[in-house]
């Protein structure tokens, strides 16, 4: 395992080294300053403002900002739904796929507009290149940009000296796409292609294999979507098996590049926050809290997977490592990633709201599977989704400040601003909506026959699958215990036609939408409420939010909220399997 730990340590060092420059760059983008790409992209930016008839400096208060987000997302949803429903009459459809069923399209449109990228469909057997490009790739970009823009507005409210202005959504939307997401995606896509990630408009190719029989290579514009899928913490694979497919992720280099792409924006945003708050220590304090929780997640999943599964041990398969073999639970994992990089990937993609997978999560060991569930159960604040992770974490910061204030009997304050009743109420709305949705939706799914028809595995794993489905969709993550199904594949064994389950598709779609936008609006409302408040200078009695004590307290609050909400559910599914050798 030493070799595996060295890989993980080097990766995290590289990430940490990149945080200040990227975080500083994003701060410049948020502030509307010139950046090194301005000479190149400035004309496109100005053209966009003219086309949208937007004055870049036209500030919005929190209500106007939130309204623009909601209107934009609603229209995006409608356009994507229509694109999915009319696939059969569109170009770039070499395999001749038909239009999506209404229930599946509802789920998919909700999924991509909310930056969730939960997938009940299999990409290469369902969607044309046109839908993947003009429909899904676009939402990969803009849903990420919406999250980052909302964070930019929230930060402005937190640090404002006066007034109600949180910036202009349309300006943020354009600048974030143009100066942050697009250039990195373009470079990353070409790097991925150089390693074997495919990028073509040609249809699939069939041939005779070396030993006889035929094989058909599904191809497509994969790299361009792969890059933004990771960078925007989206996670929706071009292929059904996502980043386990060699054409999405062919080796050790691409795996590391894709992991960096996933973490770089959410990790760097902590630095951006520190920079804009004029207190770098504050940014690093948030980074430290996130990193500490992340390290626990990766350590647990790695150790659990290396130990192997009861299914292996019962069969007499020995799971120890030896020269030339990684050992461990290799079921549903790729040889080129082994246990270490599959475990690292699993932790990275579930603490962030990426949800891409390079291994089959349904086949993780009991405790290994608990890690992604619990990571999502924190509300995706450990780095989290791009933008959404940090604004969610800032709600937890206010909650921590409030609780600390209660403990020592002082008026809680953060960045010199008093946290009062209105803010705390809004924080509670933001923090509790998602867990309540998870519990409500997964209970309903488990208690009804409409819900249980989606389950694949017997015993506690079936329970875990249901819990995972709604945990993932409510936290806008998108990874899955993929045995859980809401759509029966066209060519799957025993099924002639494609059809979706109404219950799974509709409940999941609604959960994703509510859990995306309610907390976002609550965070914007908090920012709006804070923006006008006077900044009091820190005094001797101020409880500093950039101290190690605060970091520990913040972690405690995040963990306790998640544990109080989900502990019983975790016990019934993954923990039972982790503690038992019984087969089901």
């Amino acid at each position, binding site marked *: 395992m030493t070799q595996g730990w060295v890989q993980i340590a080097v990766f995290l060092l590289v990430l940490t080294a990149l945080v200040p420059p990227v975080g500083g760059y994003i701060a410049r983008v948020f502030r509307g300053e010139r950046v090194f790409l301005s000479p190149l992209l400035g004309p496109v930016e100005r053209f966009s403002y003219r086309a949208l008839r937007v004055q870049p400096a036209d500030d919005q208060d929190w209500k106007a900002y939130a309204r623009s987000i909601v209107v934009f997302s609603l*229209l995006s949803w409608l356009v994507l739904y229509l694109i999915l429903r009319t696939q059969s009459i569109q170009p770039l459809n070499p395999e001749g796929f038909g239009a999506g069923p209404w229930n599946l399209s509802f789920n998919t449109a909700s999924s991509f507009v909310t930056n969730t990228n939960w997938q009940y469909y299999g990409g290469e057997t369902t969607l044309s290149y046109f839908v993947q490009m003009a429909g899904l790739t676009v939402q990969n970009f803009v849903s990420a940009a919406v999250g980052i823009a909302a964070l930019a507005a929230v930060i402005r409210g937190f640090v404002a000296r006066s007034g109600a202005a949180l910036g202009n959504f349309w300006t943020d939307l354009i600048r974030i796409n143009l100066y942050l997401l697009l250039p990195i995606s373009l470079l990353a896509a070409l790097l991925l292609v150089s390693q074997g990630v495919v990028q073509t408009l040609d249809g699939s190719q069939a041939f005779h294999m070396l030993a006889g029989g035929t094989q058909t290579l599904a191809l497509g514009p994969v790299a361009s979507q792969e890059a933004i899928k990771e960078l925007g913490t989206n996670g929706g694979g071009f292929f059904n098996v996502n980043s386990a497919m060699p054409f999405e992720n062919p080796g050790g280099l691409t795996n590391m590049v894709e992991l960096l792409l996933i973490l770089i924006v959410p990790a760097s945003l902590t630095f951006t926050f520190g920079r804009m708050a004029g207190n770098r220590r504050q940014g690093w304090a948030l980074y430290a809290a996130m990193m500490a929780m992340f390290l626990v997640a990766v350590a647990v999943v790695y150790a659990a997977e290396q130990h192997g599964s009861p*299914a292996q041990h019962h069969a007499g398969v020995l799971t120890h490592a030896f020269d030339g073999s990684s050992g461990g639970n290799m*079921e549903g994992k790729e040889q080129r990633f082994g246990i270490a990089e599959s475990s690292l990937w699993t932790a990275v993609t579930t603490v962030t709201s990426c949800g891409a997978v390079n291994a089959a999560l349904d086949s993780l060991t009991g405790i290994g599977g608990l890690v992604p569930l619990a990571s999502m159960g924190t509300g995706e604040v450990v780095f989290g989704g791009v933008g959404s992770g940090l604004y969610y974490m800032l709600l937890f910061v206010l909650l921590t400040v409030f609780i600390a204030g209660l403990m020592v009997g002082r008026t809680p304050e953060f960045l010199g601003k008093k946290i009062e009743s209105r803010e705390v109420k809004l924080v509670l709305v933001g923090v509790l909506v998602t867990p309540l949705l998870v519990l409500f939706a997964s209970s309903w799914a488990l208690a009804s026959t409409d819900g249980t028809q989606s389950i694949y595995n017997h015993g506690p794993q079936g329970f875990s699958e249901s819990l995972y489905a709604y945990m993932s969709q409510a936290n806008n993550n998108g990874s899955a215990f993929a045995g859980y199904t809401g759509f029966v594949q066209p060519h799957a064994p025993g099924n002639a036609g494609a059809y979706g389950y109404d219950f799974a598709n509709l409940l999941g779609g609604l959960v994703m939408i509510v859990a995306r936008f309610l907390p976002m609006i609550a965070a914007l409302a908090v920012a709006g409420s804070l923006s006008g408040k006077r900044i009091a200078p820190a005094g001797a009695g101020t409880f500093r939010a950039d101290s190690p004590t605060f970091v520990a307290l913040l972690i405690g609050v995040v963990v306790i909220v998640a544990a109080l909400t989900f502990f019983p559910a975790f016990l019934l599914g993954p923990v039972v399997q982790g503690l038992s050798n019984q087969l089901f």
Partner: protein
Amino acid sequence: MNGLRKDLTTATTAIVVLTLLLGVAYPLVTTGVAQLVFPNASNGSKIELDGKVVGSKLIGQDFRGLPRYFQSRPSATEYSADITFFNNLGPNSRELSDFFAEQLSAYLRRERRFDPGLGAAEVPVDATATSASGVDPHISVANARIQAHRVAAVRYLPLADVLDLVDEHTDGRFLTLFGEPGVNVLQLNLALDRGAGR
């Protein structure tokens, strides 16, 4: 209401502009540059034999029932590269455990004839577990070294030469650090068919 109406028109224009930029221009430019600079990689890293495509070096193939070839890892999808899915059986699944037991005994039955000392403790985990993609191009080095006994015997090649070929077709870690070493089965079998080791 005025603000809402303005938002609606702005959002409509924004979606059109961003779709053209991010959904059309970006993927097409990427495709153009990729096809120009990396023609082989962008089209699936295909391998040819006698001028005919026989596979992709990144996609594993089915060699079951043919003892002269190294065998790929078990696949839940019959090695399909256009309909992919996971096996999805849980860690405490009886069905999965039965599958492992079956794979283990089949592996031992196949290889023990040529590697008499082989016991269950020496069989690496990748040989009994399905891969995630169903088309994992690699097997572990330990797996390949065991299979080398059989391939050498069936092809009348010295074992040492086959083991050298295994080393030659082992993809190491990136920068000797990232990833897990694996032996590319298709490329190794192709090299054998081309007469390497003879």
